[in-house]
């Protein structure tokens, strides 16, 4: 920290959206020449804070000071003109244009209105040399790896005399080598006195580069800490929180016993299953009636594991057997034939068909399995739908309403019903309780217990450790796209232990057992 005066100060920031309080009285300080990590789970308010800062959203309450001036940007363009530039997770460049043009488009040097290509190329080379990047600036951006594209985006950001550089999850699609290269550039920029705000989900990276850490949870500031003084475990605790869960007071579930299930044949067994760029090889066995929890931070590979089990993505190595017979799960149709169901975490994009009615959304998977020539008789549809609307207490209880008119929790229940109707033998639930109210949450948890008691296998993914621990017989822990541990959920396992595993990882031996 070369300077004791912050370049950027945000004080008492609050921001609400209809029905949601995204930020509440958050303070944030950024000093020149530091890399400052902004941490928090999904919905903690990180991206809202960034968007409030760069003027994408207006501020409800609070003050932003840049240098000595109080500022309120009207949008990202004005922010970057004032020296606050953002590089987003999805690289926002035009893939068809050259590297040089991507850096300068919108502010090309011109003479008599004509773009000066020579000048652009020269300055682009200069700029990239500063970033220690030796590439052909006339080649289209699309011909380079994501890492290089990321750096081109950074070059665009710092060309405008940036004082503050915001990197919003820049590393989520980079491999280790590329991350190293990015870090080298970040350090260099830091040494030049630029303040870098760094958002990531990878703990290693935070400890590899950040000078200080600010943690947000549920829209409020947890605290600001020098990286050296905050052990990983403490960070994870602060991110996830250990609040007294309302649910725990509602009902204390007895510990699930794994031993009884181990004797039976496993329903599905995968070994060394992997997909390049998504998840490293892992092995996992799920028995009938068993609930396997997947714990880990966002971006740790939880969802990727689930998608491989359902054939939503193709694995590029590894073996699968169902009921002891070797097979493959190459597409959802195949997985469904084997009795697998999958509720995606991305309800809107991968779950509901917004135009169709509650009834149609519920019977969709069953209908798809029967083929279009054998429609489910209307009376049977009505029975099924009425049964599940009642069982899951879906509100409003009108089967002919377009599903888009329902609340998030009720949409989630409709999706659950879609799969329960198919009577699956393995149900994969990816964050089924996220973003829904506490009552619906409790109902879904209860349901999972009932289903597994009835012999259904469940792969349960949740960011909330308490929830995972309450429901699962076995917890698989994910970290940086790798399955680092599988813990039998017995007396020795508690939230602390899982957090420790998430924070520090485990040895490879423990995974393969």
């Amino acid at each position, binding site marked *: 920290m070369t300077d004791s005066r912050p370049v950027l100060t945000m004080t008492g920031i609050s921001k609400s959206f209809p029905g949601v309080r995204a930020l509440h009285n958050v303070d944030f300080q950024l000093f020149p020449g530091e890399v400052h990590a902004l941490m928090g789970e999904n919905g903690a308010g990180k991206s809202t804070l960034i968007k409030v800062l760069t003027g994408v959203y207006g501020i409800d309450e609070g003050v932003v000071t840049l240098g000595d001036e109080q500022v309120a940007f009207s949008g990202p363009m004005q922010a970057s003109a004032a020296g606050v530039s953002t590089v987003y997770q999805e690289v926002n460049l035009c893939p068809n244009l050259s590297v040089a043009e991507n850096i300068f488009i919108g502010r090309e040097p011109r003479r008599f209105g004509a773009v000066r290509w020579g000048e652009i190329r020269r300055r682009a080379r200069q700029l990239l040399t500063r970033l220690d990047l030796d590439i052909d600036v006339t080649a289209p951006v699309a011909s380079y790896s994501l890492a290089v594209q990321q750096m081109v985006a950074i070059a665009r950001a710092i060309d405008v005399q940036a004082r503050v550089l915001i990197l919003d999850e820049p590393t989520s699609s980079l491999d280790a080598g590329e991350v190293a290269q990015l870090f080298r550039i970040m350090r260099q920029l830091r040494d030049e006195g630029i303040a870098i705000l760094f958002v990531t989900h990878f703990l290693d990276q935070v400890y590899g580069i950040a000078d200080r850490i600010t943690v947000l949870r549920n829209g409020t500031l947890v605290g600001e800490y020098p990286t050296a003084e905050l052990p990983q475990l403490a960070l994870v605790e602060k991110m996830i929180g250990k609040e007294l869960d309302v649910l725990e007071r509602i009902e204390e579930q007895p510990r699930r016993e794994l031993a009884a299930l181990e004797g039976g044949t496993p329903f599905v067994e995968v070994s060394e299953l992997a997909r390049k760029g998504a998840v490293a090889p892992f092995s996992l066995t799920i028995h009938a009636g068993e609930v396997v929890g997947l714990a880990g931070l966002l971006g740790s590979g939880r969802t990727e594991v689930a998608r491989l089990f359902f054939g939503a993505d193709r694995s590029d190595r590894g073996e699968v057997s169902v009921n002891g017979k070797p097979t493959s799960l190459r597409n959802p149709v195949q997985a*469904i034939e084997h009795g697998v169901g999958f509720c995606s975490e991305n309800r809107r994009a991968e779950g509901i068909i917004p135009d169709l009615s509650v009834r149609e959304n519920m019977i969709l998977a069953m209908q798809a399995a029967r083929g279009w020539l054998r429609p489910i008789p209307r009376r049977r549809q009505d029975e099924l739908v009425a049964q599940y609307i009642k069982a899951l207490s879906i509100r409003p209880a009108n089967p002919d309403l377009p599903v888009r008119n329902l609340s998030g929790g009720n949409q989630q229940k409709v999706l659950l019903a879609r799969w329960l109707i198919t009577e699956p033998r393995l149900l994969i639930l990816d964050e089924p309780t996220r973003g829904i109210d506490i009552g619906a949450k409790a109902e879904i948890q209860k349901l999972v217990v009932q289903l597994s008691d009835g012999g259904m296998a469940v792969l349960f993914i949740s960011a909330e450790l308490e929830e995972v621990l309450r429901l699962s017989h076995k917890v698989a822990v994910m970290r940086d796209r790798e399955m680092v541990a599988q813990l039998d959920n017995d007396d020795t396992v508690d939230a602390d232990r899982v957090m420790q595993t998430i924070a520090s990882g485990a040895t490879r031996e423990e995974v393969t057992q």
Partner: protein
Amino acid sequence: MTDAKNRYQAVLSHRLFWPVAVLVVLLAANTVYRPGFLSIEVNNGHLYGTPIDILRLSAPLILVALGMTLVISTGGIDLSVGSICAISGAIACLHISQAADQNNMVTVFTALAMALGVALALGAWNGILVSVIGIQPIIATLILMVAGRGIAQLVTEGQIITINSGPYRAIGLGHFLTLPLAIFIALGAALLVAGLTRRTALGMIIESVGGNREASRLAGIRSARMVFLVYVVSAVCAAIAGFMMTANVSSADGNNAGLWVELDAILAVVIGGTSLAGGRFYLGGTILGALIIQTLTTTVYAMNISPQTALLFKAVVVIAVCLIQAPAFRAKLSRRRRGTPTPSTPSAPRQKEEVSA
């Protein structure tokens, strides 16, 4: 009182309200202009009159629009239907014209079967380009739209093939139970498509694919297969429409048969309330749309305005209908009506929608 108001609101917001209103206004305007407009008379045991003519003339458009409805429901579009009309009509007429006895039923049915076979192949071609190779529908079907005209002229060797076949002519001009046969064919096709989609699960599955392709895939639907299918259905519908068009004039003109019918069909679908973005489809609305377009054309004829000038009216209708349906326009309108600016906060999710659209 609120009940009456609610009912009024419900009628007003029903998706078929505006199409029906337009049709009624058109018919009313015609009746005012020409009091005998709606009268129907019996002659030789057949019904005659302008309303019957409108029904008969709209039959080919209804057929094409039925297929187009399914294609649009999957989020696609089929520009090649006009060319397919021309090709199928040309093949059928060519076969009949070469036969010794043009009135032979076997000849006529062979001709129809041949033409339908070719149409199936053309539909499959479109389907493969879109669902297997993954070319954008508008571009994939543009190929056949351009080349198809040439193929049709190749079949007719650039001539207008004139035939003199009673049975074939009946497809366009024949009568059955006092009404033109064409009406029954269109009605039959409409019932068949409606039955196929609404009595089976096909309709729901198509809507599901059009509404959210990825979610449909994850629910176990073979989306690509459905997309392929609708292009084949569209081509078959177009082929039957092609028979009607050529039968109406007892001749096949590779250049002009079915010219611009794809545009009218798309228009009929949109007027009928099916969104160009895909999803829910409304066969009844489509038929209504086709009737509106034909009534408009007939009206313009009756007023002695050239049919080309009718395009002016059509342009107005297209823009009006699209504006009414465009969410952006509705939002702007309702914002003005309420007099309060809508909060500008959720701009980020909106951008996402644009990308996916």
